[in-house]
């Protein structure tokens, strides 16, 4: 974000900032990712690990889980999705308001992982669009944090169009 700041002498405070609208909105959005954890399988353990004190995704503004899809803007699909569950995931995704992003957490959500059978959906991108894939069985917390930072970079450099007078 390029900011041209004018400070008032002796006060040390910003009086005003100039920036571009997209950069400003992207900067705000990338630090306020409210994740909806759609947690179905053993990757949940790693999700807990990365969310809690030691790794602490709160440092990236992405740790306040909203258990209503309507209040969240980051869908984290953590674990194996079965064909029986696919309609539920699709519905959760459709209930989320724009703007929204999706992370496939672990190989099962990414591609079905080592399951190839009658029950398992071979990757959630068959039913919903995915922004970021984090492989691993389960992924290391460092990989998740790396993934979140990559997503933040993308959000920061995205265009954030004004729709009907609002961002």
């Amino acid at each position, binding site marked *: 974000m390029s900011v041209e700041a004018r400070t008032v002498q002796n006060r040390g405070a910003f009086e005003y900032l100039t920036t571009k609208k997209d950069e400003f909105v992207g900067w705000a959005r990338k630090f306020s990712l409210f994740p909806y954890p759609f947690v179905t399988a053993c990757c949940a353990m790693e999700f807990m690990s990365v969310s809690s004190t030691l790794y602490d995704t709160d440092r990236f503004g992405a740790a306040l889980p909203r258990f209503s899809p309507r209040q969240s803007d980051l869908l984290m699909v953590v674990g194996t999705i079965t*064909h*029986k569950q*696919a309609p539920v995931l699709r519905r959760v995704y459709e209930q989320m308001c724009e703007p929204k992003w999706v992370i496939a957490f672990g190989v099962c959500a990414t591609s079905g992982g080592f399951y*190839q*059978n*009658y029950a398992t959906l071979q990757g959630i*991108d068959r039913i*919903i669009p995915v922004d970021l894939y984090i492989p691993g069985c389960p992924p290391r917390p460092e990989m998740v944090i790396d993934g979140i930072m990559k997503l933040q970079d993308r959000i920061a450099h995205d265009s954030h169009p004004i729709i009907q007078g609002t961002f």
Partner: protein
Amino acid sequence: MNVAEALPQRVLARWSSLAQEAAIAHGTLALRVAPERLVELASSLKLEFGFDLLLDVTGVDWPGRDPRFDVVYHFYSTRDFVRTRLKTRVPECEPAVDSLTALYNSARFAERECHDMFGIEFRGNADLRPILLYEGFVGHPLRKDYPKQREQPLVSYRK
């Protein structure tokens, strides 16, 4: 001789002549009976020998063998801590056995699962709706001739 050894011997003495096969296999008493005698034997296990818990109902598919399917039951005695395995064989043309729901309530769900996975009919189980699979699923996925890669998605895939 402790009860864990004595009880299987008592069951064997009572049933070895009536069962098609009877042996101690892998440390567990295993019996095989004709499908017609299944309920009789299960009642005997429950009422005479105290096998009060039905652990599981499952199947085994032997493609090429006639009769093709094994239906396998596992019982447990919570008094004596002893397990028993019970098998029966059913043919592909009529894969049906009598239900054990009159003896064990837990048989209702276990038989539904076996019906899902192997297509075994349980006569007397009034509710054989899919329990792990979903309505509209065609075929029985744990049969050996179910294609491994066949998918039956409920949501249409994105283009």
